[in-house]
């Protein structure tokens, strides 16, 4: 009886968490692409207008970003202006939760068949590197280590702190702006 009542609540909480994380990541992706040259270099190889999606199957939360050119990303929220080019699909909400709550590394989740890639694999590989870079920026080192295969050695603390602060600031302003809009 009790489990029956508790479970939908737990899954509701997971759903909200995943949705919120997608929002934070989407905004952070846009912000980090404005300040970090490593991310910009990675992104420059993507075609202009390239649409990237992360989503929870079958029809759950979504994160959509577009490459605007020059290595800059634009966060589109959860609706794409046209069909996306590459989609990373979590097979289940639970898998998305494991990854986005940093209990399972993105690379491990791939290895564990937790998600599918739809579209050009080489672009998906590139986006995974961008996401890793993003996670090591915005997360405290102790959590970032759990999230990415290797914590970049060239990410020294001052740079990390200042950039992360800038990203947080940008994310925060973006939130405020969209709340106003």
């Amino acid at each position: 009886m009790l489990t029956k009542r508790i479970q939908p609540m737990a899954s509701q909480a997971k759903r909200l968490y995943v949705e919120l994380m997608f929002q934070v990541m989407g905004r952070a992706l846009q912000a980090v692409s404005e300040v970090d040259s490593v991310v910009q270099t990675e992104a420059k190889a993507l075609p202009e207008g390239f649409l990237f999606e992360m989503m929870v199957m079958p029809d759950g939360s979504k994160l959509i970003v577009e490459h605007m050119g020059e290595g800059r990303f634009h966060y589109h929220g959860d609706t794409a202006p046209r069909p996306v080019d590459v989609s990373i699909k979590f097979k289940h909400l639970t898998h998305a939760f494991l990854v986005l709550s940093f209990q399972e590394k993105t690379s491990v989740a791939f290895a564990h068949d937790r998600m599918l890639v739809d579209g050009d694999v080489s672009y998906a590989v590139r986006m995974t590197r961008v996401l890793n870079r993003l996670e090591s920026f915005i997360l405290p080192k102790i959590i970032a280590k759990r999230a990415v295969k290797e914590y970049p050695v060239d990410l020294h603390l001052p740079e990390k702190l200042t950039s992360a602060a800038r990203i947080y600031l940008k994310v925060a302003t973006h939130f405020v702006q969209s709340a106003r809009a």
Partner: protein
Amino acid sequence: MTNTYYEFFCPVKVIAGKAALEHIPYELSGLGAKRPMIVTDKGVRAAGLLDPVIAACEESNLDIVCIYDDVPPDSSTTVVRDIAAVYRKEKCDSIIAIGGGSAIDTGKAVNILVSEGGTDIAKYSGAGVIKHPLKPFFVVPTTAGTGSEVTSIAVITDETKGVKLPFTSSFLLPNAAIIDPRMTMTLPPHITAATAMDAMTHSVESFTCMAKNPLSDAYATAAIKKVSQSLLQVMDNPKDSDGRLELAQASTMAGIAFSNSMVGLVHSLGHATGAICHLPHGLCMSLYLPYVLEYNLETIRQPLGELLLYLEGPEVYADTPASRRAEASISALRKLRDALYKRCQLPRTLKETGKVTEDQLDHIAEMALDDGSIMFNPKEVTLKDARAVLQRAWA
């Protein structure tokens, strides 16, 4: 509790051993197929390898309706379209691919077109696009290496766009893989060596990369043992049919292993090198294997050390202190490469290939970083790392 999780899938019927080819007519009729088409290449046909298959079918009153023997080394979308047209014109109802990875991948792609319809194979590129079972499809491997007879992937070049299109679907898996020692007996020494090293690499990467699991581990170790025990014997005595069968089975087992656990950086570098310098896949595998293992060493010390048992046998394993086994495994692989170099000049460095120039290394590194297999390499690889590995593999 750990986060351990894995999937393992291999629904291919394996028909292996003496007189295996003679089972083809029975297996085809079991699927209601009466008008098979053979897809193969000129080298395989010239080696006389179609004759026993055709004879086996004729003896059971099954006519091979047509034979396409013009598959090129890097099969293309145009070739696939042409073969599909022949298949339709001749009203075939099934495909038998006979050959190495090139003919097999082509057969898989043709099967998509003739089953799903249309003339544009590019439309079906990607993962999970195909949603229905395809036509009856049999594979007779004639190289012992790619394991393509048990993998759910095919790679076809789109000539107009100059890109390699991957196709992945479990529906690409053949209904049956027929492993007959007669089919690899004619393999020339350097292809025997290179393709066997492809199988070795599939096993070693499968056992040391991120998606390893207990079932793929079992196939990988068994395959390594077979290649280690039989490859040099076969190199010295090409007509050793028991040894040939061992290598052919090892290749299939390694294919089962890696299609369930994926491969890593050796393949990322190898795919890029194949595309840029047009070197055979197996050669690239043999070339990069030790350098990549050295790069990954500290991340894979434990599993790589375990492989010493299968590479060198129980005595050497027991005599080697646990802390030295990973290095000893790399040495064993280097020793095998030296022995192959002695017998057929299979290159051990990029320089030895004579087909790669040092100024191509940066391009190879960049392309390798975009290869899907790099996601499963146990250690993160940056552009700088890839360049460093290539530099070590140079000479």
